[in-house]
């Protein structure tokens, strides 16, 4: 760092230097762990009630179970959020909306598939109008139950926090999904690891 005659400070190639600095800092465990710590307590789910598990999701945000103490604060717009809780069945009509909302969210982002229907179709497994969640978006946590109790949802959030602390990458980073299945075709997920 040197000073010019005209009083301008020269830093060299600022872009290059900053990239080097970032990559240096990222290798230091403590910065990454600090970022993870921040992510852990700011899991903001987008307010996207795809189905009937939404009532239990609402109860979980209510005062008895109070998931806000885990930093779990439902939000209206997808731009401010980093978590989708897919609450139950997703229909063909809704699949596209879920995908659009997911694509609007900034990275890193996580997905919890809540309920048996989101896992594998559940009680509606042979319906011609439903799509399992994993065909729409990459899923991090599958949560069983029909509907899962709010305690179970809290457990899923805690598990997600643990996986963040253990520095596991979100499923969005390691999976490439097909576009959401439309009415005619049943696209199958291509799980491509990096």
């Amino acid at each position: 760092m040197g000073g010019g005659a005209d009083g301008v400070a020269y830093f060299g190639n600022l872009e290059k230097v900053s990239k080097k600095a970032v990559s240096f800092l990222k290798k230091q465990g403590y910065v990454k762990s600090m970022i993870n710590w921040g992510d852990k307590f700011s899991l903001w789910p987008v307010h996207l009630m795809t189905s009937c598990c939404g009532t239990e999701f609402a109860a979980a945000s209510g005062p008895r179970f109070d998931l806000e103490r885990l930093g779990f604060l439902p939000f209206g717009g997808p731009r401010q959020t980093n978590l989708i809780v897919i609450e139950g069945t997703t229909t063909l009509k809704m699949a596209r909306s879920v995908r659009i909302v997911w694509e609007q969210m900034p990275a890193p982002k996580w997905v919890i598939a809540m309920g048996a229907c989101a896992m594998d179709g559940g009680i509606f497994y042979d319906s011609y109008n439903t799509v399992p969640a994993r065909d729409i978006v990459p899923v991090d946590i599958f949560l069983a139950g029909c509907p899962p109790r709010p305690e179970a949802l809290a457990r899923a959030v805690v598990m997600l926090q643990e996986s963040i602390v253990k520095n596991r990458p979100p499923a969005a980073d390691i999976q490439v999904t097909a576009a959401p299945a439309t009415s005619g075709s049943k696209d199958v997920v291509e799980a491509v690891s990096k």
Partner: protein
Amino acid sequence: MTAASRVITGITFTTDEAKRIFEVEASDGAHLLDLATRLKAAGFDHCLSVTAEDLGDRLAVLWHISSYTNKELSGMNAQIRLIVSKSDNVEVPTLTGIWESANFLERETYEMFGVVFKGHPDMRRLLLPDDFTGKWPMRKDFPLKKTPWRVQK
């Protein structure tokens, strides 16, 4: 069904009191409109359900009606039944002109059974996605997705 009949408001219903069935059969479209007009005048003021039954080569279109205001009729779920031959697009007259509450119910019956209600103000799909390729899902020949997803993978 036990073949009992009861005359209510001048119209003969086939009834089964224990199963709460009060049915009147319409022979054709003109008769249906005439029946509906008379039932409306008698005090049946709203439509509870519009649906159809797939009887193989025929379709039975059903309107379930009841009354909010007439205390004698409000205990009944009366039904009007019209049997038509089954084809790709069955046409029956709409009863939205008589009971406005049939509006969404007839739209649902259209997309599920392919019954086109002639004269309906807004005959469009309601529940299914716009690009749904299958035809008339509630008919008996429409297949379910038989295999669970885990088998496919």
